[in-house]
């Protein structure tokens, strides 16, 4: 029997790394790891390890297309993602340039944070984010979002809320319509690399949303607003809602962890 999630999960209800469907991997993070930058963070989600540093808001580079008229109304967010050659299972030697995967992550991060941050406070400036992936074991985009959020908080860049990312998948190919009476597929939270390679998954990024109207009066917990959603694999549309719900729940858990990290490091600073 091949050892993969889609065959072992229905039998054991445990994933390859021993987690249940709704369990996150161990999430550890630190902020202010790099004193030379305005803000920095180190984040490990299981075996995915990311270093992130933020420079700015600083003056945009001269002669740069983004530093010109585009930045006159607010800061421009620049994201640079570098996946280390030793990050994956097979050691790759790259010719310096960025590959398709890292440039996609960079584009997504840039779009997410450009609209998320209060950039209007810093006209004519650039916020540059550098993400280094030291070890890649799935949920790269989600881990990068969380690392960037921490580094931006450390840099003191105003934002309406923490932007937290998480992945969610299905424990099978999920290519046929869902049968509500015989639900043999479970949603999975926080996928690792072997799971990502065989299963359909999506990455969701949420921020705190503002309670509206009636809800604004009660002091209950704030609910989440999806501000980023990315899906590269194919899945039947009947499963998307389940995956999204699980992903949003994961984001909520991650947000609590990140808040703890921020509070912990603010007190010890």
């Amino acid at each position, binding site marked *: 029997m091949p050892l993969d999630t889609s065959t072992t999960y229905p039998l054991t209800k445990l994933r390859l790394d021993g987690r249940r469907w709704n369990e996150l991997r161990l999430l550890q993070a630190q902020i202010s790891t790099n004193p030379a930058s*305005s803000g920095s963070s180190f984040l490990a989600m299981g075996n995915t390890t990311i270093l992130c540093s933020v*420079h700015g*808001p*600083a*003056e*945009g580079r*001269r002669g740069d297309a983004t*530093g*010109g*008229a585009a*930045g*006159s109304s607010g800061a421009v967010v620049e994201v640079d993602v570098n996946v280390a050659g030793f990050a994956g299972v097979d050691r790759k030697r790259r010719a310096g340039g960025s590959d398709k995967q890292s440039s996609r992550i960079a584009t997504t991060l840039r779009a997410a944070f450009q609209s998320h941050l*209060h950039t209007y*406070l*810093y*006209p*004519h*400036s650039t916020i540059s984010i550098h993400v280094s992936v030291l070890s890649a074991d799935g949920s790269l985009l989600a881990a990068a979002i969380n690392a960037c959020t921490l580094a931006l*908080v*450390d840099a*003191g*860049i*105003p*934002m*309406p*809320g*923490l932007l937290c990312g998480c992945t969610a998948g299905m424990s099978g190919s999920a290519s046929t319509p869902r049968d509500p009476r015989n639900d043999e597929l479970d949603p999975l939270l926080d996928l690792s690399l072997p799971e990502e390679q065989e299963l359909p998954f999506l990455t969701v990024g949420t*921020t*705190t949303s*503002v*309670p*509206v109207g009636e809800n*604004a*009066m009660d*002091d209950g917990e*704030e609910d989440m607003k999806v501000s980023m959603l990315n899906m590269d694999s194919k899945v039947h549309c009947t499963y998307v809602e389940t995956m999204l719900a699980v992903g949003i729940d994961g984001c909520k858990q991650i947000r609590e962890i990140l*808040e703890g990290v*921020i*509070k912990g490091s*603010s*007190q010890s*600073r």
Partner: protein
Amino acid sequence: MASTLPALAIPGQRLGPVASYSAGPGTHVQQSNVYASIAGPVVVDPAQPGSKAKATLSVSRSIRAPGTGNVVKPVTTSAGAKPAATSAPPKPKLKYNTLPTVDSVVLARVTRVQKRQATVSILVVLDDPASTQGVNPSQTASDNDNIEAILSSAANPENHSSSDELRFQALIRKEDVRAVEKDRVVMDEMFRVGDIVRGTVISLGDQSFYYLTTARNDLGVVMARSEAGNMMFPVSWKEMRDSATGQAELRKVARPF
């Protein structure tokens, strides 16, 4: 609604309704609530007794009060409570990210002197232009925390370029150097590379430079080294003297306080 404020705010945390607070630095207003937008201690600035103004909520970046090393004690008054005791301890300076704006007073280092203009890089933006007249730069707070280190790292050609390139660049044009005899200004007799200049921003300029002016008595060179490399002290509005050799050099000197 419970109105106890958290000691430490996290971005996105609700601090209170706009009905009872107004939003200060580090916060934003959404759906008639004040939310934190940066992480840090929450500070309540109570309204002047008698005035109609609301207490201002702000979130600071600094955790320690500079100098004392003590943790800034966050104020946790409830919305309806009377303002804190009048004999408040000297207010610690709080840190915010500051960008130069028109009329803000800045300290800048001269990086290049040309016939018609001097290029400087802005090191420190002094917060609160109204109160900066008598302020000593080491007490001002901006996000460039270690001001002493920035100012003293003056004549180091190696890391000079790298650290100064990252800062905001500004120009002092020949006609903005002083208010009188503008046409007789010779830039070489006003500034030298490496001088620390106090100036005010007159324009945000184009995409590459701010514009500064030193055309006021209290603006101009505040720190300079002579050709021998010694610190100089001001002797008149256009002359500074080397404390070791006694040699005089020409500068547009800021009035010492």
